[in-house]
């Protein structure tokens, strides 16, 4: 590899490190997980679920995060199907807690097969943390670039080049798959207050159309002033005050 290529890789590595990590206090999966535990013990399931969701973004393969997330949501009486629909970032390999309640409903073979396949794919693409996945994706891109550059210079080692290109494409696909799995979590929020009223319009007037239980994970679809339009896992939509829900990705 030429000196220029080495310089380019070093530059990109430094740049990447500057993006991902910082000297300032930031987020770590362990700290978020511990904070979620602290909120759970303090009787604040909404904030606990919020921190677990954030921790799962950084460490999607951590079974402890998924187990505690499910435990807290179950304790907050969030329905099992809503938990399954909303916990996009929860890894599927989390062992069920000992006090797990409620058996999954019977499903058709086709649905079971597709669900199993989705679990396998989700588990595969979330094996690595997003930071590692970024490195791998970048490596795949560099491999592709190296193959193109090599083929331009010479036609030697054609099979080696093809294998390297396939590996690069696989790494890029892996990264894209993880991005697709994590994408819904980037636009979700957690209800952090008990009985948050959801209204038909973004004004604090009139009777709410329904109330959201604390610790439920909802999807953010729009915002207006002090209100956020959310969609629940059950498909209901309503405007909720910002003070009642906290986005998984903090917004300025």
């Amino acid at each position, binding site marked *: 590899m030429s000196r220029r290529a080495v310089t380019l890789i070093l530059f990109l590595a430094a*740049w990447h490190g500057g993006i991902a990590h910082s000297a*300032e206090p930031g987020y770590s999966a362990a700290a978020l997980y*511990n904070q979620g535990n602290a909120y759970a013990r303090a009787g604040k399931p909404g*904030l606990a679920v919020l921190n677990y969701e954030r921790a799962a973004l950084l460490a999607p393969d951590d079974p*402890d995060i998924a187990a505690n997330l499910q435990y807290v949501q179950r304790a907050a009486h969030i329905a099992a199907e809503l938990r399954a629909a909303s916990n996009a970032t929860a890894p599927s390999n989390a062992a069920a807690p000992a006090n797990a309640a409620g058996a999954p409903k019977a499903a058709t073979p086709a649905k079971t097969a597709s669900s199993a396949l989705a679990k396998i794919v989700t588990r595969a693409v979330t094996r690595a943390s997003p930071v590692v996945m970024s490195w791998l994706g*970048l490596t795949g891109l560099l491999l592709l670039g190296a193959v193109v550059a090599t083929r331009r210079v010479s036609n030697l080692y054609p099979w080696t080049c093809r294998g390297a290109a396939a590996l690069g494409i696989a790494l890029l696909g892996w990264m894209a798959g993880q991005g697709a799995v*994590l994408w819904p979590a980037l636009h979700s929020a957690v209800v952090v207050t008990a009985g948050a009223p959801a209204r038909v319009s973004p*004004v604090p007037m009139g009777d709410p159309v329904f109330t959201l239980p604390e610790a439920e994970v909802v999807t953010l679809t729009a915002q207006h002033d002090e209100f956020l339009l959310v969609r629940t896992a059950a498909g209901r939509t309503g405007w909720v005050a910002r003070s009642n829900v906290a986005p998984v990705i*903090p917004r300025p």
Partner: protein
Amino acid sequence: MSAAAAPAAAPLVDATLEPARITMGQSAELTITSSGSSNVPAALPQVNGLDFRVIGQSHRVEIVSGATLVSTAIMVRVTPRAAGIYTIPGITPQSQPLVLRVDPEDAPGKPSGPGNLNSAASHAEGIHMTADGSAYVRLVLPKHEAFVGESIPVEIEVGMRNGFVSSLNGLPTLNGADFTLNNLSRQPERIPKLIDGREFTLLTWHSVLAPIKPGKFSLSVESPLTVRVQTRPARESRLEDALGDPFLQNYFGVTVSKDITVTSAATELTVLPLPAEGRPPDFGGAVGSFKIADDLSSSTAAAGDPLTLRLHVTGAGNFDRVDSAMLDHLDAWKTYPPKSSFKASDPVGFRGEKIFEQPLIASQSGPQTIPALSFSYFDPSMRRYEVARSAPLAVAITPSAADQSAGPPAAGKTAGTAAPADGLRPDHVLSGAAQRSLVPPYLQARFIAAPTLLSLVIAGGWLGRRRSLVPRAPRRAAKAAGRVVQLLEAAAQAGKAAEFFSIARSALIGVEGPEGASEDTREIFDLADEANYSGHELTTTDYARWIEVVRRRILPEKGA
């Protein structure tokens, strides 16, 4: 009027009608007297438009010169149903017919009587009673000077004499379009009252009168009624009035129903305009006497939680014009348009309390102060504008739960505090570097820039490699050759052989050099010299052939 029939020795039957001329609403009396051995006819006369009713009978026995003379008189009441001239046929075939003339009520020269309702009114206790004393309407105003927009509580009193007024056919209405009268749809108060010794039923409506423009006005109200009109002669009416029993009067069918409209006496009211001097900018038309107060739904709240600011306006006046925008804008707060509700403390809504409720949402935590609210109105008793002010309100705003969760957690704050007994998995040991963002790096714009740049480099290399493999298309040479051919064709068309060969030679020198690489080129060079010095002429065919030769020599070969 009388009609006697019969010869002297025959039984005598006499009929008289009094009076022979009446007004519609009155009745006449037909007296049929028979004497001797004659029988009184069993059937009463039948005349269209007249009602006959026997109201009495008398017998008289006279002894004249030892002879006994018996006579019987039957009194029949004749009541017309419409105005006109009626002919009552004779009681016996020998009797003469009688004529009854019935005038309409408003006919000139009509006789006055107790049934005439629209004649001169009687006044008692300020009451404008109808002529027959059956009903009256009265408008009670508390003041006779008011301001535009001011609400004036008024009373409308309808007095109906018991037994004379059968129904009230509508609500009282105000004469004059310069006022509004509200809340008359409620049920009126009903009380009995004696007026001049007669029993009346009083219906009283309480309402609010509001003038809409300045000036001097004469106000009155009117009310539609149905009354029972007396139809008997005055002497009998006086008798039955003396008996004072309307039940008996109605029982004998001595009245007819009639729809009338009773109007009250006029009341003067002067309406003054609101003064322009001293009018506050936020004056919205409220006239009356008001006080305000404010309160907040809670003295503490979290940032983002809605609070309700309430403004209470109490007093008396035109509450429909009481309005307040409350707080249009407030720093560090999100304000919403207020909504209002009114609770009246009297039936007409003149006194009460109007409450404005405005939702507020604090956007910053910390102690906050809601500024004082103000409300402007015109006080008619003081004849000036007033501004009522409330007290400022203090509220403590705490950070919202969402705000508390927005920042990154303090590293190490909860590390190592495992408590597996509560069903949660134990805490993790803190390790690894903290990340600036929760968003995966490959979804951050700054990170995406790197692979995008790299992709561009790769794409550029790919394209460069393709271009090195694919022969370069001599597009520029082809363009230049095309221009040369165009010049050659122009010279050929003009018949300028010297110019034609000069262009061809210049083009071919650029391709094959000054000596020429082919036979055709060298021949063109020779022809160029010849045309230049000897004026060699060419045919059209020659031009075309040499153009084709030049085109072949200067155009790049395909696949080269």
